């Protein structure tokens, strides 16, 4: 156990070291850094602004008002924001394989996953988190808080990030075989985020089933949020689903870890 903790601790320290080195390298272009920060903040903000505009003509969407949707939107957005900041670079895996960068990483005494994810770390991706956090805070403002609801909200956000991290990693490993399929992964990661920005009651029951038992993004915000918002699930799911996000995160994480291991074993390097 102590060994495992030490290994994870070292990995974390190395992640920060590599990320900071990239931060320093990219800070050389300070002007473009701030331009990117501002533009990406504006772009991601427009996302929710569009939703809010819809609600000027509409009181409720599938039974949920705009404040409740802000809560769902924020939980999902925070999750993918954190996941994207920490491990988003994994979608460049195919390119790293093609250029031989992965070979170089495999010669260093740092876990491969840490190096892949910390590569070209860009702090500007934090803008997504800030934007989603602002929407989430506004959504939280209206909630009738109890200690257990607060605890569940924290659990929800943490697991949201964990599930998206698992999805990023799991689907990126496909690139060990194909070397080109960032689009497939995007369908599940960013796609999963877009879907869970809305109350899942807008979708047919079959879709919600797939989002629960297939790619379990329903646990990113929907099930725990129902409990926090004091809502009943229109699809009649059991109440304990609200507390199941850790199970979903564990399932996605395990699948991703197995896929990653298989990918590394399959890895064939480049020619020469």
């Amino acid at each position: 156990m102590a060994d495992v903790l030490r290994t994870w601790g070292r990995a974390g320290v190395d992640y920060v070291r590599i990320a900071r080195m990239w931060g320093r390298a990219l800070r050389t272009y300070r002007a473009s850094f701030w331009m990117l920060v501002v533009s990406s903040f504006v772009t991601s903000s427009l996302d929710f602004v569009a939703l809010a505009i819809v609600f000027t003509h509409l009181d409720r969407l599938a039974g949920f008002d705009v404040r409740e949707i802000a809560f769902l939107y924020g939980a999902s957005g925070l999750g993918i924001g954190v996941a994207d900041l920490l491990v988003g670079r994994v979608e460049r895996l195919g390119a790293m394989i093609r250029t031989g960068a992965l070979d170089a990483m495999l010669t260093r005494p740092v876990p491969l996953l840490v190096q892949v994810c910390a590569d070209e770390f860009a702090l500007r991706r934090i803008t997504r988190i800030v934007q989603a956090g602002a929407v989430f805070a506004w959504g939280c403002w209206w909630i009738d808080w109890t200690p257990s609801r607060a605890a569940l909200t924290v659990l929800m956000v943490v697991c949201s990030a964990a599930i998206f991290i698992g999805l990023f990693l799991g689907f990126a490993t496909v690139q060990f075989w194909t070397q080109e399929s960032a689009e497939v992964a995007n369908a599940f990661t960013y796609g999963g985020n877009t879907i869970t920005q809305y109350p899942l009651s807008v979708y047919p029951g079959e879709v919600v089933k797939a989002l629960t038992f297939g790619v379990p993004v329903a646990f990113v915000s929907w099930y725990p949020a129902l409990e926090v918002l004091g809502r009943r699930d229109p699809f009649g799911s059991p109440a304990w689903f609200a507390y199941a996000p850790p199970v979903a995160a564990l399932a996605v994480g395990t699948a991703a870890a197995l896929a990653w291991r298989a990918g590394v074993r399959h890895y064939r390097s480049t020619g020469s």
Partner: protein
Amino acid sequence: MTPETPATPGIPGDTVIVAEHLRRVFPRRGRPDVVAVDDLSFTVRRGEVLGLLGPNGAGKSTTIKMLTGILVPTAGRLEVAGVDPTRHRTALARRMGVLFGQRTTLWWDLPLGDSLDLLGRVHRVPPDRLRRTRELLVDVLDLGPLLGTPVRQLSLGQRVRGDLAAALLHGPDLLYLDEPTIGLDITSKRRLRELLTTLIAESGVTLLLTTHDLSDVEALCRRVLVIDHGTAIFDGDLAALHVAGGSARTLVVDLVAPVPSLEAPGATTVRTEDDGRRHWLRLPQDASTAPVIAAIAAAHEIADLSVREPEIEDVVARLYSGGGPAVSD
């Protein structure tokens, strides 16, 4: 966690690399699989300098990549510095240095100096030792003016020097050099070889070298492993390689007065030129030239004389075409 000595019975404690029946297959969709390495076995002792030779596609790089933990063997047993390279890749990485001549192990977009600092830190080299080693390497490899330059802007020769610094920064006791001199000009090649010779003599590092350039091997290696079609066709020292490859020295004799043929004990005439003034004689690699020259000088007046050593290229080429394994030691 990292045993210092391999726990394999019958293998001496100073053995650094044990490869047994190593195999790596690359499956291909709809086409036959490529067997890059097939039933390759060898051991390397501490402090040995081993040259891995072989034609393109023989399996040299695949072998190095399995030894470093980059590629997972399909079958066979592999133990490097007492551990399985795949399962304990990071533990092994702390003890080895790698240089790929054809690509960098540095961060492409980071300045060389930053790259070296970061490597030193992820290798957990104590700060003052890191500073001393870094200074030494920057000095010896003449990297001072390049430290602020991103790796992608370095010339090939500069980049290889930078990569060598990276490979040595943490004081590895095992060094892999994969085609270190490929693409370098003659001056850079010579400089790199001199550096490596000094390094070998001073540090006692175990070194594995793959190369196309046989003069690298002649300059650095005592032992040679020739690989063809993924398997070892020769394992022994350079002198034994000449014997196995059927090497022969050639004695070229110019005579003052022409004779139709020249007789000498142990030598056979290969060619006669210039109406019998110049004679080409073949001698076995291990035979001495002195008695042959003495015999000729006793019978004829010699105008000029030269001995041509066999080209190792030819020797190895003969091994490749010779087919069957010729393992000697």
